[in-house]
């Protein structure tokens, strides 16, 4: 090789290497920043998680949770293992609550309406300005002597927050606190009080029962306390210590809970009460019931003969007798009545019938049956009474009796039946103040939004209802600093109260809700012997309680005798079946709107995890649907995924069809919770809301909407459906994927007869 070339090569190599190195240095990222703490928090080690006990508020069950915090951010919500209800477990909604905290569509600070009502055009204002404006309005109202025109619409507010709100209302001079939740348990409370005289929801001891007869209680996904009940369910099935319990579900639609039942009894909608009473009659007639009032029971139940019941309910006579026989002979047994029985126009009667059934079978007040709960600790919480309901508010609003409306965290514009026209009524209200954290349909109607904290940012407590037989008080503490410029609802009330002055100010002795809560607990500590015995001082008790997540004392469980007397229930027992709107000739199908596992009454619809969570039964994601029996579908000429129009006397909605074997041919079902007009990017413009076509039938005693009280007709529409379901095929094809063993051997172990 010539030397010239050699030098050239060497030169090229050298320059190349040099440039490469320069280039390598130049394009290196400037380097992440290493931001140290200014002052290190004591209990934080970076990269290690801290767990703080708190309370889940995604549904009213009141589970104790642990929130995993790393570097100041909430990372995960888990059940609190010490907590008697959640026991370290948590349901879908509880865990997904995190995405409500970090939801991109939250209201990020106080806002004032700019455009027309409902136009969602708001301008941000400061907190001082917002509270000042609310105060002015309140003062104007009281100056006119119309303090009573202040209404406060809220879901059940747990614990001392509810009390503080009540104090405020009382101090201001209004008694109009309206508690509303689409799926609250007012019917259940009412029926229990009417039949058994108890105020608190009793403990249904599924764990220890041997035979569970459920009338439409979807406890696996939504009813009452899904986590606590599912824990009990697991123990009932394979707890080992008692042998496997049997589970029968009466329901026109095979819900998630019914899918787990050993037997599914698809009774005709609205006749569950008759079935319960027929079973009760069988039990009474068989001589199993040995009470002194046997004769009156016999007389009371005499109309519910087998042949009558079988005809009405569409359940085989033999089967009713068989269930009755098993129900009384398997000890202990337990009957529960859920949304599926309380959601009819005669809901209270149905729940009373379930209580009668429990009574005659001897399931009241025993282990594995129904156990009374007390709420002595908190003392006379109004939560246990059934006060004025939403219909009162709507009527008042319609008649312009509402001068000012405080509205917190429920969404009547969405969760009331379309024919109740709640949104229109609210438009009559001159000034609406919303404390909601999300811009939902109702909040959009408000004039000023004072967004409140989510449960992760706030203080609070809850006296769990239903409690597991003894009192459980769960404390909620702020585990993260607030993500946006929101405030604690308690602080807002205190702020407004102090600004309003007068009695309202006098009722607010503390400056912040945090101190108020602690002070209130100090009073409880002084009152309750169990608490004071557990720690030397209140401070240590408070610290321990915060660490533990609350206060509960299993020893405080009191055995209380429960009974149902014929006198108290007589007026609730009637042969009259549930009423359905629409003539059966024109509207041949019963409509069952039901709470979907992920969204409950629609509050979970803005959470992407829950939207993408397949429905436990249908596996549909990001949508709602109408469940139709294949026979009916064939008759109507619709296929899976087709769009169908569901028409009731009150309107029509469009929904994709889900053809489902597990529903009666004369019934269709639609999950509630989708098709929000407003509720953030994940919830909007999707699916069908069956509430829009429901009548505003209420039980006047409880003001609970009878959701299952209309008939519908269904017609295919030509628009293509876009149903997305994760399971395209649900046939096992004999591949032995879910293997089973017959129940025979299992039952032998546990049978006592």
């Amino acid at each position, binding site marked *: 090789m010539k030397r010239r070339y050699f030098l050239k090569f060497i030169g090229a190599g050298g320059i190349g290497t040099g440039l490469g190195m320069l280039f390598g240095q130049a394009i290196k990222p400037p380097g992440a920043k290493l931001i140290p703490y200014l002052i290190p928090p004591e209990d934080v080690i*970076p990269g290690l998680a801290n767990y703080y006990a708190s309370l889940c508020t995604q549904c009213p069950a009141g589970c104790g949770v642990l929130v995993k915090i790393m570097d100041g951010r909430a990372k995960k919500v888990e059940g609190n293992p010490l907590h008697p209800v959640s026991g370290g477990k948590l349901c879908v909604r509880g865990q997904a609550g995190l995405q409500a905290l970090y939801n991109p569509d939250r209201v990020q600070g106080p806002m004032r309406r700019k455009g027309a009502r409902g136009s969602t055009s708001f301008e941000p204002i400061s907190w001082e300005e917002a509270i000042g404006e609310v105060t002015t309005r309140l003062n104007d109202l009281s100056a006119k002597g119309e303090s009573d025109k202040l209404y406060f619409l809220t879901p059940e507010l747990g614990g001392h927050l509810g009390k503080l709100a009540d104090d405020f209302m009382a101090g201001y001079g209004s008694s109009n606190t309206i508690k509303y939740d689409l799926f609250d348990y007012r019917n259940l409370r009412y029926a229990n009080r009417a039949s058994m005289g108890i105020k608190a929801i009793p403990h249904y001891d599924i764990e220890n029962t041997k035979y569970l007869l459920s009338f439409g209680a979807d406890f696996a996904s939504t009813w009452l306390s899904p986590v606590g009940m599912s824990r009990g369910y697991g123990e009932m099935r394979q707890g080992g210590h008692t042998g496997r319990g049997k589970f029968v579900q009466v329901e026109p639609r095979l819900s998630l809970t019914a899918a787990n039942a050993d037997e599914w009894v698809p009774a005709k909608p609205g006749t569950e009460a008759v079935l319960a009473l027929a079973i009760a009659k069988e039990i009474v007639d068989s001589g199993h019931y040995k009470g002194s009032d046997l004769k009156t029971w016999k007389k009371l139940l005499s109309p519910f003969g087998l042949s009558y019941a079988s005809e009405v309910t569409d359940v085989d006579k033999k089967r009713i007798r068989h269930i009755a026989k098993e129900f009384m002979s398997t000890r202990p047994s337990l009957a529960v009545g859920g949304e599926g029985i309380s959601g009819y126009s005669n809901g209270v009667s149905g729940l009373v019938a379930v209580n009668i059934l429990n009574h005659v079978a001897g399931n009241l007040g025993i282990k594995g049956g129904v156990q009374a709960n007390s709420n002595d600790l908190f003392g006379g919480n109004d939560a246990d009474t059934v006060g004025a309901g939403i219909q009162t508010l709507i009527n008042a609003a319609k008649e312009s009796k509402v001068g000012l409306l405080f509205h917190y965290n429920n969404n009547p514009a969405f969760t009331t039946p379309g024919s109740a026209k709640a949104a229109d009524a609210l438009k009559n209200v001159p000034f609406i103040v919303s404390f909601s954290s999300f811009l939902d349909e109702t909040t959009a109607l408000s004039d000023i939004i004072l967004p409140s904290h989510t449960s992760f940012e706030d203080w609070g407590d809850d006296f769990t209802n239903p409690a597991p037989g003894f009192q459980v008080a769960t404390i909620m503490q702020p585990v993260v600093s607030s993500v946006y410029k929101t405030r604690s609802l308690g602080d807002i009330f205190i702020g407004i109260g102090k600004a309003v002055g007068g009695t309202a100010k006098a009722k607010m002795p503390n400056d912040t809700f945090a101190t108020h809560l602690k002070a209130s607990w100090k009073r409880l500590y002084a009152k309750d012997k169990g608490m004071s015995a557990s720690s030397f001082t209140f401070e240590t008790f408070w610290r321990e309680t915060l660490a533990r997540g609350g206060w509960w004392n299993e020893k405080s469980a009191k055995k209380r005798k429960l009974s149902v007397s014929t006198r108290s229930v007589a007026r609730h027992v009637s042969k009259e079946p549930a009423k359905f709107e629409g003539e059966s000739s024109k509207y041949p199908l019963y409509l069952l709107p039901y709470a979907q596992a992920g969204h409950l009454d629609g509050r979970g619809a803005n959470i992407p995890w829950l939207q993408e969570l397949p429905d436990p039964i249908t596996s549909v994601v990001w949508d709602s649907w109408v469940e139709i029996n294949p026979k009916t579908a064939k008759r109507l000429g619709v296929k899976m995924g087709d769009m169908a129009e569901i028409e009731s006397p009150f309107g029509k909605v469009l929904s994709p069809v889900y053809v489902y074997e597990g529903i009666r041919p004369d019934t269709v079902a639609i999950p509630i919770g989708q098709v929000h007009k407003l509720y953030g990017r994940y919830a909007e413009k999707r699916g069908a809301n069956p509430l829009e076509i429901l009548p505003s039938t209420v039980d006047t005693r409880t003001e609970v909407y009878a959701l299952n009280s209309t008939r519908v007709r269904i017609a295919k529409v030509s628009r293509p459906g876009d149903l997305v379901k994760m399971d395209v095929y649900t046939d096992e094809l004999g591949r032995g994927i879910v293997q089973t063993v017959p129940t025979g051997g299992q039952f032998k172990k546990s049978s006592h007869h």
Partner: protein
Amino acid sequence: MKNLIVNFIILVIFVVTLGVGYLIADQYIGRAPEQPINFSHKIHAGTNEIPCMYCHIYAERAKVSGAPNVQRCMGCHKIIKTESPEIKKLAGYWERQEPIPWIKVHNLPDHVDFTHKRHIKAGRKCQECHGPVETMDRVTRVASLKMGWCLKCHAKYNVKNGRECWTCHI
């Protein structure tokens, strides 16, 4: 013709060495970024012999060693050398209640799950990875922090599960 070939070869050599140079720069030339405060480990750890764990308080307990918090710096520098311009900078941060935005010298990719704790507990000296920091005025990275470098050491000390992927990657 011949020139064409020669030029082509030169081009090839150039491109190849460019890559080589880049790799060398990436692998072997340590980072030594300029920091917001001209902090000298030489003075602190070298001259004054302050132990590493005195400031990097999390090294024994957590994955990260933790840059010292501003309070800790101020703990000494409220009294010591308060006149120095660099300390004034520090005091400025403290007054404004701002953390100091140090620039990371030893930056690992996201998918590496390195823990200081295990290494300290296994008796490794800080200097084995970070070099003689006590002699550096400005901290310079001495190791490539590449996977091969990690594994070499794991092999040297015969670490249990030292070559399992999940030891560092999850």
